């Protein structure tokens, strides 16, 4: 029987298609978590009010922040889940090698991040419509979005989500390398955050979030996110080279 020659890129595409189909279940949790986020968003991000001689006012502020944050957490956990054995071994029932497996995983995460990024924008609008019908005050103020703001906004949402997915992937691979990381990482992370908080000014937490959140140039922001994500993903690939392919 003659041997088949395969092109890596061809197999990447096949694995990617297989993953889109077989990991399709992650979209169930996406829908559920988005709806949950919309529900939480009804609390509003703030309220202000005041009065003078002839005027009294009350403003309720709503934003899509919670939806985006929830999607970031969702992507983080999705990435961890797809590094687990149950998912990892699925690839190896068919043609693959480890780089292809990682690469198709990354493509998958990128795709769901893009979908999640767009759906954050869309579900913010669903939320607005719901607020419009469920709250009495009909005066609504919205920022007018220019096309550029709109595009950068959706791209930035996608990048934020992908950043978290990359972090989740990295942590997931660490946990696969050694179960102990499942306890070390949360302890380290949350312990660090709390110690930070106890110190009075949460420098670490603030610095990390400012590194991304306070960047006002979209180009620099995109560069920052992509560089950090690529470092995380390459590290994941490097770490996994220490493991057996399948046990």
């Amino acid at each position: 029987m003659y041997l088949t020659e395969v092109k890596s890129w061809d197999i990447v595409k096949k694995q990617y298609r297989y993953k889109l189909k077989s990991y399709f279940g992650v979209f169930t949790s996406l829908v559920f978590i988005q709806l949950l986020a919309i529900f939480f968003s009804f609390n509003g991000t703030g309220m202000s009010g005041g009065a003078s001689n002839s005027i009294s006012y009350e403003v309720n502020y709503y934003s899509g922040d919670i939806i985006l944050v929830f999607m970031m957490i969702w992507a983080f956990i999705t990435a961890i889940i797809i590094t687990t054995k149950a998912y990892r071994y699925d690839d190896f029932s068919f043609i693959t090698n480890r780089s292809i497996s990682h690469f198709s995983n990354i493509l998958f995460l990128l795709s769901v991040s893009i979908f999640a990024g767009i759906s954050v924008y869309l579900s913010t609008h669903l939320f607005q419509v719901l607020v419009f019908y469920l709250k009495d005050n009909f005066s609504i103020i919205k920022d007018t979005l220019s096309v550029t703001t709109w595009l950068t906004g959706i791209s930035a949402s996608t990048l934020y989500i992908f950043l978290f997915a990359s972090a989740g992937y990295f942590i997931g691979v660490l946990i696969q390398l050694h179960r102990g990381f499942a306890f070390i990482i949360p302890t380290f992370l949350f312990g660090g955050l709390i110690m930070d908080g106890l110190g009075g000014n949460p420098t670490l937490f603030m610095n990390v979030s400012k590194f991304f959140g306070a960047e006002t140039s979209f180009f620099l922001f995109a560069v920052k996110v992509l560089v950090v994500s690529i470092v995380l993903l390459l590290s994941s690939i490097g770490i996994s080279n220490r493991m057996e392919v399948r046990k």
Partner: protein
Amino acid sequence: MSIIVMLIPILFFVVITMGIGTYMVRSNNKRSGGLRKIKWLLGGYTLVLLLATAFSVTLLPEHVTEGKMVTRSEMDKVQAAQSKIIDRAFAGKLENVKGAFLEKENWSFPFKGSTLDINMIDKEMYGIMVFVEKKKINGVVEATHYYGKSYIDGMDFTDKIESPSLAVDGKTLSIKAPKMLEVSFTKFSEGFAFSQFSGTRNAFEDHHTSVMGNDFILLSVPSDLNITGDVNFVNE
């Protein structure tokens, strides 16, 4: 206390992450109902989202006041200008009113008497500054209600504000509070990913600022008229 306050968002984040994580791992273990069911779910959801977005983009604007937003520094400038004018008015000099204040309403009452008493109805609830300017006019009292530019969260509300009602009965000018303007509205922002690069606001700054404009009534009266009541004389 402050430590606990600091920890709350972190704890909230931890709890939410753990909650979402548990749910996702659980739902992951359950056999999903196959590709078809999820496709329907996702397709349906996406359709709802698209409809909602189309609706909010095309239909909501009828109900939406698209604010011409004023930046914080502009508001600060407006407020400073108003205060300056009022301060100087108390010192007896009212000038350069236009610009910072709008002329909301004018009244003109024929008046023959020698003494005019200014009476504020519901003094406890409503107090408005009254400035009096003596002019070379006869048999008439003119009143103007000025209102300073008012912004709630960057939106100009000056036009919506009503003037008090003025009436002369005998030798009394009574000022009655206008109907209270109650503003209650909802403000949406798309989220930090959208505002981060638009240059207007910063996610790390509190952006809720309002300017409640000062208002006053300027009475122009014949120079020989004697005014009683809680008033301030300007431009003597």
